[in-house]
């Protein structure tokens, strides 16, 4: 069994499939082999679809042989979905006792679109309960770069699986940073698209105005490829945009010459871990050397986003969970219950005030993005912290990410370095509405000029 196959990019694997050098069964077996070997220690999966995935892979193999070609660029490739995405016939728990036996009879729209593109469901990845709280039932998803450290929340199972070669592509959801934070902690690529770009139909919701669904991969090109299939108007999601979807892989190689990147003066570069600071400064220099122009920008409201964002998320979450909390409060994990219950304590006036702040922040950011192509920030001010910290009093990991859930702008994290202890550091790029293409183009240019994405965690040594 070729374990290296599980570390190939979607793009590479597609080429190998097209040339019949490997089959979908080979790829699925390689990924399943690594899940069997490392999955237990990493706790990156809640459900593994072993036999079903192999059966789908055999069907894909036969279909490709009959047709003489693949259905599309994702056909025959495996995908892992965060366990908050509804999957027809496959248990969807959201890591909660409340949904422990829930087997949906339909797919979430993004799951259906990827399935129609020919992707094979390999499993459902671990998440904090309802994407916001406890990790009691299926364990803490651990960071492949240091098993004593947290993979990040809430799409940490997807991020850890990618970093460890237990998935070749994954999806996540992001309400305050839940794609970008674990992607940064685990050294992979994650995109929170523009609000409305990807349907949320079939996502176990947390906050209607802040939830996003997005792709998680090991390379920027793969992220673009996955978004191609996930994006687009969905009539059953009233927040879904009618904006046309370009081929996000077009123009990836256009480079960054002439691109203007905003570097915020406030908040994002304050109080950084020295190694994160050094990695970001080096990344900015690299972007400059690639032809981008750096421009300091003012975002004076940036330090104030956390509290209004927290009020909006938890007030909306309480609205969704109130009925269940009345009946089954004890079935919620302690941290989840406390956080969601807090949302029931705000007045409508406070919710409205938070929404007004949101307008002010969004206008401030949008105004800056009229002058620059993207804003560059650290994804987090520190690298991954110990599992014990997560189980005790973890820091606010949405420190630099919630801003773009509040405004709805697209934001992507890409690896930009490692600490001396071998922990990944992520760089965040946030761009104009529906301009994910520019983020991919800038991140791809940076990625191709560096080698961070080629590093592998030392799992074999830890085995």
């Amino acid at each position, binding site marked *: 069994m070729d374990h290296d196959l599980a570390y190939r990019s979607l793009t590479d694997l597609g080429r190998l499939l097209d040339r019949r050098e490997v089959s979908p069964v080979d790829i699925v077996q390689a990924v399943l082999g690594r899940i069997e070997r490392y999955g237990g220690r990493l706790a990156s999966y809640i459900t593994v679809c072993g036999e079903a995935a192999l059966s789908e892979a055999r069907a894909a193999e036969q279909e490709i042989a009959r047709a003489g070609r693949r259905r599309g660029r994702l056909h025959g490739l495996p995908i892992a979905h965060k366990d908050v995405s509804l999957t027809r016939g496959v248990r969807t728990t959201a890591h909660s006792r409340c949904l422990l036996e829930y087997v949906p009879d339909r797919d979430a729209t993004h799951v259906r679109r990827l399935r129609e593109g020919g992707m094979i469901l390999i499993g459902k990845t671990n998440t904090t309960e309802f994407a916001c709280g406890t990790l009691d039932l299926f364990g803490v998803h651990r960071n492949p770069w240091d098993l004593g450290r947290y993979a990040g929340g809430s799409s940490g199972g997807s991020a850890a699986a990618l970093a460890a070669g237990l998935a070749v592509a994954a999806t996540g959801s992001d309400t305050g940073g839940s794609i970008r934070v674990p992607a940064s902690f685990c050294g992979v690529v994650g995109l929170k698209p523009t*609000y409305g770009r990807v349907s949320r139909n079939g996502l176990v919701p947390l906050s209607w105005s802040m939830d996003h669904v997005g792709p998680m991969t090991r390379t920027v090109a793969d992220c673009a490829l996955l978004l191609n299939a996930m994006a687009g108007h969905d009539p059953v999601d009233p927040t879904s945009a009618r904006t046309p979807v370009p081929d996000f892989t077009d*123009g990836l190689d256009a480079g960054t010459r002439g691109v203007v990147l905003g570097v915020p003066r406030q908040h994002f570069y304050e109080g950084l871990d020295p190694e994160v600071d050094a990695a970001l400064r080096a990344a900015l220099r690299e972007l400059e050397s690639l032809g981008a122009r750096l421009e300091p920008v003012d975002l*004076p409201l940036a330090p104030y986003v956390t509290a209004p964002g927290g009020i909006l998320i*938890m007030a909306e979450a309480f609205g969704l969970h109130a009925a269940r909390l009345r009946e089954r409060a004890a079935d919620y994990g302690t941290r989840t219950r406390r956080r969601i219950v807090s949302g029931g304590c705000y007045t409508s006036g406070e919710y409205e005030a938070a929404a007004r702040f949101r307008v002010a922040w969004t206008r401030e950011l949008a105004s800056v993005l009229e002058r620059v192509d993207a804003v560059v920030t650290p994804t987090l001010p520190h690298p991954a912290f110990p599992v014990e910290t997560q189980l005790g009093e973890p820091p606010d990991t949405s420190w630099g990410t919630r801003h773009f859930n509040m405004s709805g702008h697209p934001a992507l994290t890409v690896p930009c370095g490692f600490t001396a202890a071998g922990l990944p550091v992520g760089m965040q790029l946030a761009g104009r509405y529906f301009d994910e293409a520019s983020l991919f183009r800038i991140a791809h240019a940076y990625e191709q000029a560096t080698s961070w994405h080629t590093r592998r965690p030392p799992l074999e040594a830890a085995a």
Partner: protein
Amino acid sequence: MRPAGQNAADEVRAALARQGITVGEDDLAVVVKIVEANRAGLERALAAVSGEPEVPQGFVPPAPPGDAAPQAG
């Protein structure tokens, strides 16, 4: 605004009770901490906004100019 004589814990307990939610003492202490921190943060946030904050008109990002798909390159 909190009625005179009511402390934060009483207020939180009462707000939740009105909605049919009962909380234990351990949960209550943490919930009060979260709510008080966010309220203080919201006050600071509103004070940082220059002028009267605008009323939200819903939350749907605008389509790009001409509703055209943005292109890379």
